[in-house]
Structure formats: structure tokens, C-alpha cells
């Protein structure tokens, strides 16, 4: 018996090479592999679970259309300013081509989709940034569309909800991009002074000028788990201070611990939690007198 323990297990004599035919058994897109825990899941099932991994809770990236479907009441969304497109104000070489390419790739005109809709029956104005278009970077159109959505919320006296996802400023628009931070903030200030409710939900990634403007200006600042949120990039900070940063640096959980967020909420509970907040902010609350 002892001997058996020490004998080497026989090496496999043959290696199998999967044939081309076998590979095509599973058509593209039917299965999705979780980049975090490597679990392989049916894409359909994953989508039903708001693209949250069943095994490790990893939040797969969501585009604006998927977000609308999972967050707003079915059929309630009415888009605003869909046709607005960007110019090339600085005459930046290649910018127009890049925009054109992303328009084709994503079917979107810009990196944010704005509109009106409802969450469990409660009306809201909403802006959803889309990181698949130019990394969700903020240029004149993004700033203008968000500002208009805020103004619409003000006009209709409904809450303003924003899902942020952005790499930051759009370099090709230079200082015009920077000024969108101020423009959106000015609009939020007026809305807030009129008693407007602002809910910001930061998703992966929310960085640069977006994190330093409307993303952080909510009455409630919320985030999805594991999202990267911060102003300066990790690499830049490391190079500047010549120190290695902690593993969880600039994650949602890190921000919660450091007082920047009200709560980190899983995408599967997001709609319920937010409709709870909206519910509490409904005008005309009455004080009920039931004895208990």
C-alpha cells in the first residue's frame, strides 16, 4: 500500500486537441465567463440577474439600454435629445472619425442617454452614462444633455437620477469639456435650491471630472459594488507619491469606509432600494394616527 503512494501516476499519453467542429458547438455569446471568478454561465440567465454573477456577485458592465430595461418600469422610458451630436470645436485631428466609429459600434449618438421614466410607478428624470461610447467621456454634448435633463426635472418637479460611468473629461474637447463640470453643477444647484431630489448612482468606472461634479452632488450618493470611483488615476497617484496603493483603493467599498457614499447597493436590489427613497420623498405625506 505504501508503495502505491509513492508511485507516480501515469502520465497521459495523448493530448486532445479540440476540433474546429467541437468549438462551434457553442455559438458566440450563449455563454459568458465571469472575469472575476471564472464561472461560466448562460448569458440569458446572467442578463436576467441584472448581469450580476451568480457565484461571486461580480457586476458585469451594463450599457444604457440594458440599464433602462433593468431599472425603469417596462415601457415607461421616453428619451430626450436623442439627435444631439457633437461637433469638433477644437478641430482635433481624427475626432470626428472616432465619434463616427463609436456611433456605428454602439448605436448611440453620445455617451449619455437622458429621458423621463418611472421607477415602481414614481416619475423621474434620468440620465444614464454609457461607457461603451468613448469610455463615457464628457464633452459638450454629454454636459448639455445632462443639464437639459436636470432642467426638465426642475420643470416637472420630479427627482433627478443619474447613473454615472465615465473615464472623465473628453480630451478632444479640451477646456470645453472641463467647463461641463461647472455647467452641470450650476444646473444642479438651482434644481437643489428649488427642493429637487438628486440621486447619484456611481457605476464602474466613475472617474475624473465626472466624479468631481454631478456624480458626487447627490442628496444620496450610492454606488454599485466593486466599482472604480476616484478623481486621479491609480497609476498617476502611484507615480507621484512613489508608493504602492492598497488593493481596494478607489473602490466603492473604500469610498464607503471613507465617508463618501451613503450606501453600496447590489444591482439586484437597486430598483427596490431607490424606489424606497423616492417613496419617502413623495410630496404630501400625512401623519397617520393608528393606535398600536
Amino acid at each position: 500500500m505504501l508503495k502505491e503512494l509513492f508511485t507516480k501516476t501515469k502520465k497521459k499519453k495523448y493530448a486532445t486537441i479540440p476540433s474546429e467542429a467541437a468549438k462551434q458547438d457553442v455559438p458566440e455569446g450563449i455563454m459568458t465567463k465571469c472575469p472575476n471568478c471564472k464561472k461560466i454561465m448562460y448569458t440569458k440567465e446572467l442578463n436576467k440577474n441584472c448581469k450580476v454573477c451568480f457565484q461571486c456577485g461580480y457586476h458585469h458592465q451594463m450599457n444604457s439600454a440594458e440599464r433602462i430595461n433593468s431599472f425603469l418600469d417596462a415601457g415607461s422610458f421616453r428619451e430626450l435629445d436623442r439627435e444631439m451630436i457633437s461637433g469638433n470645436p477644437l478641430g482635433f485631428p481624427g475626432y470626428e472619425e472616432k465619434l463616427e466609429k463609436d456611433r456605428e459600434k454602439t448605436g448611440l449618438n453620445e455617451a449619455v442617454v437622458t429621458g423621463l421614466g418611472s421607477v415602481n410607478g414614481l416619475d423621474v428624470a434620468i440620465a444614464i452614462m454609457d461607457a461603451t461610447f468613448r469610455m463615457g467621456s464628457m464633452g459638450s454634448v454629454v454636459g448639455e444633455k445632462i443639464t437639459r435633463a436636470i432642467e426638465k426635472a426642475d420643470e416637472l418637479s420630479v427627482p433627478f437620477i443619474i447613473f454615472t460611468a465615465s473615464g472623465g473629461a473628453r480630451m478632444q474637447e479640451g477646456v470645453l469639456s472641463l467647463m461641463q463640470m461647472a455647467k452641470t453643477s450650476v444646473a444642479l444647484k438651482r434644481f437643489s435650491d428649488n427642493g429637487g431630489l438628486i440621486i447619484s448612482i456611481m457605476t464602474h468606472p466613475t472617474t475624473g471630472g465626472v466624479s468631481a461634479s454631478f456624480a458626487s452632488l447627490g442628496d444620496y450618493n450610492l454606488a454599485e459594488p466593486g466599482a472604480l470611483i476616484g478623481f486621479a488615476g491609480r497609476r498617476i497617484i502611484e507615480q507621484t507619491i512613489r508608493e504602492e496603493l492598497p488593493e481596494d483603493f478607489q473602490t466603492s467599498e473604500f469610498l464607503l469606509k471613507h465617508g463618501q457614499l451613503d450606501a453600496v447597493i447590489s444591482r439586484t436590489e437597486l430598483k427596490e432600494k431607490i424606489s424606497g427613497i423616492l417613496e419617502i420623498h413623495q410630496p404630501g405625506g400625512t401623519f397617520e394616527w393608528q393606535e398600536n
Partner: protein
Amino acid sequence: MAGELEFEKPVMELRKKISELKEFTQNTDVDLTAEIDKLETRLQKLESEIYENMKPWDRVQIARHPNRPTTLEYISLLFTDFFECHGDRSYGDDEAIVGGIAKFHGYPVTVIGHQRGKDTKENIRRNFGMPHPEGYRKALRLMKQAEKFKRPIICFIDTKGAYPGKAAEERGQSEAIARNLFEMAGLTVPVICVVIGEGGSGGALALGVGNYIHMLENSTYSVISPEGAAAILWKDSTLAKKAAETMKITAPDLKGLGIIDEIIPEVKGGAHKDLKQQAKYMDKVLRDSMSELLVLDEETLLSQRYEKYKQIGEFSFPTEFIGVK
């Protein structure tokens, strides 16, 4: 019974005896009903004797009882739809103070309170309910938010005091407490404060500037803990019991001094004996206060609060002047 306090030992012993006798009667044929009845009458007498004549130090013991209901327990029983908000938006999230939005009998409110832990692990996380500056700043942030959305604010006070630590001083403990007093004075919404356990020093007051201040019957509110007072006054912290009696820290004392509005009765032996019943007592007082304050306009709310604090303090102008002119 676990967690019994020194002064209530005779009650506990008698109760134990009665239950022993009851068991004995059940298991044997000997009938001791008359005996038991007699003891039960004695128990009732003893209970009222002990619980109705509690000394300040006894109340201190109850206020510090490890099972004394905490802010989050009252929140779960008195409010619905509670959504906890974290963080001061600048440095950290102090878990020694909890706060959020909720509904009280269907009416939106903001609730804030000190939060002790229930066990050692939680106590470490919550720093035994002793806040750091970021805790006060979180509270203030939530109060300002409540003001924006015109929600009444309910504060539960339950802390030994502000945390005497290095980091707290570095981050401006004094400024944070001062800012809260200053800003709370100007809040245009109703503010109701309830001391539910220990109300210790500036750490307590930082959640304590309101239109109404109520206290649970066995809670305490003081400028310093009895131990601290004894150490300062007599250089001997073991004289805490004496300090507790001298310092006027119980709810009846504060009511007498005109500082608090109402004493919320506690269940016999302290709130920890029956949390649900205790929540009902609390609910009634909160409802009364809410309905009184909700009808007032902003200006009246502010002047009511101003007058409330203005009248606290004692001084005189004697006819025969003996001071320095």
C-alpha cells in the same frame, strides 16, 4: 437571570424562590399555594419598594446595562422603511452614530442616534458609541438634508461622551460639536431629542439641540460621567456613586431643573426588561411631540427653540449687593 443589577438582587432572589416553590408543587403532592401567594404579595411590595425608590446610582446602572435597547432597536420598532445613510462626505463613516431616512406613522422623518454595540466586537466597530468628528459631521449632513426636504428630525442620545482621542482632536472635535449646536439652532424643521441611555457631555449635546428634549426615566444626562466628576472634584473615581447623587443627572432631576420636557416612563426594572412595551411608551410621546410641532411654522419653531435654551441657567441680582461694583 442574566444581567441583574446589585440593587435588584432581593427581587431576583425572591422571584427565584417562588419559581422553585412552584416547581416543587407541580412535582409533588404537597400544596404550597398559600405560601406562594404570600410570597407573591411580598414580591410585589418589594418590587414597588425597590423600583420606585431608585437611587441615582441605580439609574446609572440601568442606563449602562449591556442589554439596554439601542438606537437601532428603537428604529426597527418605531419606524418603517428605514434607509441608513453613511459617511460625512469628507473623511469617514463613524459607526458610533447612525442615521437615515424613515417613516414614522407614514410621515417621512430623518432619524439619527448614537449607536453602542451589543457585544465586544460590535462595540469596537462602533467605538462604544463614542463619536469622532466625522460622526457629528455625518449627523449634521443628514440634518441639513432633512431641512432641505422639510422632514422633522428625531435624535436618540446614548453616549458616554465624545471620544477623548488624538485623532479626534486632530480632526477638530470641538469645531464639529460646536458646529452642530450652531446649525441645529437654525434648523427650520421640528427637532425632537430623546435621551435613551447615557447622555454624556458635548458628545450627547451635539445631537441634543431641539424643540423638545425627552428622557427615558432611567437615563442620565450630564456634563461628565460620575467617575469623571469624582476624579476631578475629589481626585478619586471610586466616589462615583456620591458624584451621581450630587450632580443631578437623572431624568427627574433634569425635569426639575427645567431642561427636559418629558420623562418617558420605563417598564419596571428598566427598558431592557421589555423592549416592545418600552417602544410603545416612546411611540406615544414621539407622536404627541410630532403633532404639536408639525403645525408650527418655521419662525415659531426657531423662536420656541431659542426661548427653550435661553431660559436655562440660574442667577440672581440680590437687593443687597455683595460683589464687586
